[in-house]
């Protein structure tokens, strides 16, 4: 339990990368990238977590109540936006690639030298 969420983060990263490396479909690879990206959300939020802390919103609870770190929350928010927008851009590129090459399979998108 002491390191479980950290281990989950490492696992998500590697399993996402495994998906990209073995992928036969670019759209599949893009979703795998978003899984790898989600490892950072898990890692950031778990390092900022404080057992027994509330959410850092002091509307109903007074200031001074033990609360979790608000900074990692803000960082993860940014991270989620970045991940989503990169995925959208990649999807558009994949659609383009399909238009030019007639396939989404990276094996068949070969580099033509010269």
């Amino acid at each position, binding site marked *: 339990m002491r390191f479980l969420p950290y281990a989950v*983060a490492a696992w998500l*990263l590697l399993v996402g*990368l495994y998906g*990209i*490396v*073995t*992928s036969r479909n*670019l759209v599949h*690879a*893009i979703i795998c*990238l978003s899984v*790898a*990206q989600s*490892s*950072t959300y898990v*890692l*950031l939020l778990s*390092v*900022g977590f404080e057992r027994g802390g509330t959410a850092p919103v002091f509307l109903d609870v007074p200031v001074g109540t033990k609360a979790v770190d608000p*900074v*990692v929350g803000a*960082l993860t928010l*940014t*991270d989620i936006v*970045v991940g989503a*927008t*990169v995925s959208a*851009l*990649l999807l558009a*590129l*994949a659609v*383009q*690639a399909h238009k*030019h*090459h007639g396939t989404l399979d*990276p*094996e068949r*998108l*070969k*580099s*033509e*030298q*010269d």
Partner: protein
Amino acid sequence: MDALPALAVAFPLLVAAALVGLAPICPRRVADAAAVVTAAIVAALGLALLARCLEGPVVYWFGGWTPRDGIVLGVAFTVDPVGAGLATLAGVLATAALTFSWRTFEAVRTLHHGLMLVFLAGIVGFCLSGDLFNMFVFYELFSVAAYALAGYRTTDPGSVRGALNFAITNSVGAILLLGGIALLYGRTGALNLAQLGQALAKGPADRLVVVAFLLLMVGFFVKAAVVPFHFWLADAYALAPTVVGVLFAGVVSELGLYAVARVYWTVFSASLAGAEGVRGVLLLGAVATALVGGVMCLLQHHLARMLAYATISHVGLTLAGFALLGPVGAGGAVLYLLADGLVKGSLFISVGIVEHHLHDVGERRLQGRGRHLPWAAALMTVGALGLAGVPPFGTFLGKALMEEAAFEAGFPWLIGLYVVVAALTSAALLRATGRVFLGLGPPQAPAASGPRAPDEAALRHPQVHATQVVPAVLLLAGALAIGLAPGLAGAVQDAADRFTDRQAYAAAVLQGARDPASSRPHPPVHLTSPALGAVLSALLGLGLALAALYPDRLPARLRGGVARVWDPAAAMLRGLHGGHVGDSVAWLVVGLAGFGTLLALVVR
């Protein structure tokens, strides 16, 4: 309060939004002019910042959140001459590239200009930032803009594949980067570089610090295209539109190196100080990058791809300067990086001129067809000399400093690396220049396929426009000016002393200390033997180029011997660089494991 650092980022962002918002009613010429002027203003702001931070870093707290008792609450830009210099370089290259594109570029309405300005603003923010997470944000900002810019030349199907590979591999790099940031934050509860450095300075590096350094280093190395993280680069850079390629090759790769150096000296230098082996690990990456890039460069016949591999090999040379982990090497690396960026930007424009007039960039198909483009020929030749680091180019001065540092640090063999690699890249360029513009070499069998445009195409554009040539000439002039400016070597060494002084940086950020630090007297740089080395590089390059053009004139035995070694090696290297995205990511993980194992071994 003087808002200059914030304006250098906010101004291009504001113009970008305005250009996009007004796209439907904004005439094309107005948008063109606005983009060029904005880029030029950013360059001027960079210069103004550079002038201001010579006496110590300029620290700018967004929202006015100055630190309390050494605890940083907000985000700071910490501008020093190195960061400001890179920001200026980006502004200059963007101005040149946008001027070049004035006549050549069919923009999708004005959206493209908006994207270019966001790209520029991201680079500037990245160079000025003094906060690790903020660096990540700006890193992603210019990267996302770059992915889109790399992929949208719909006439070349390869550019989409290149952009995909680029975006996926670099996004994986960004994930590693963020993992490193999370590790450091979990340990120290800080994101400001200075505060992080203070927190880590309390003890020697343990496993968390080693892995955090590894993740940050690899994340930035992906952008810099250090071997084996470089497989994405050639397609992305070579197939991007010229206006984008100028910035890619000129400054973006270098940003990755800058970031490793910045983070090393502000955050990790105290805790890794005892580990001499770190130097060896970094040098290993540098040597591999320089050699692989140089050999691959020589193997290319696509002019832009050639420049892309030249970029990789020179990243290796620059990294070698930083890897010596001393102020002299760092100063040389910075100087080299600035001058080399200008030279490569100019070369990319020259290739753009060739492409614009001949509708092709394949060296063998173009044999002799560039005879009516004397400007491009001259630019390419002079640029090749600049790449070789011949005096009085700025690249020469930078290399001289790095060689001196290598000698003093006990790595004299690095000097040989500089000579050989500069010879390889300049040989490739000289060979191509000779073939395309002078028609040298035995006639090539005309390629059956390929975009061989009829020569009337060249007749339709008989004139090379000033907007195409002048930017390239000015960039080369800038590279010369860096080499000739009196006193620049001393100023750069002062800047490098500050860049590598963690405690002074921390004091300036956390306590607002702004001591007019006494500049250490610098011994004069030895120039004679580096000059001989540079001339040797250029001659070697010329010889190699001629040998490649006229292999039949070589003695048969020599030719056979070379072919036995060279051909299988070349075939293997070519096979590795197939442009498969899975390969890029697999090699990235191999590099992560390899560098990680080495770092773990040397830091123990």
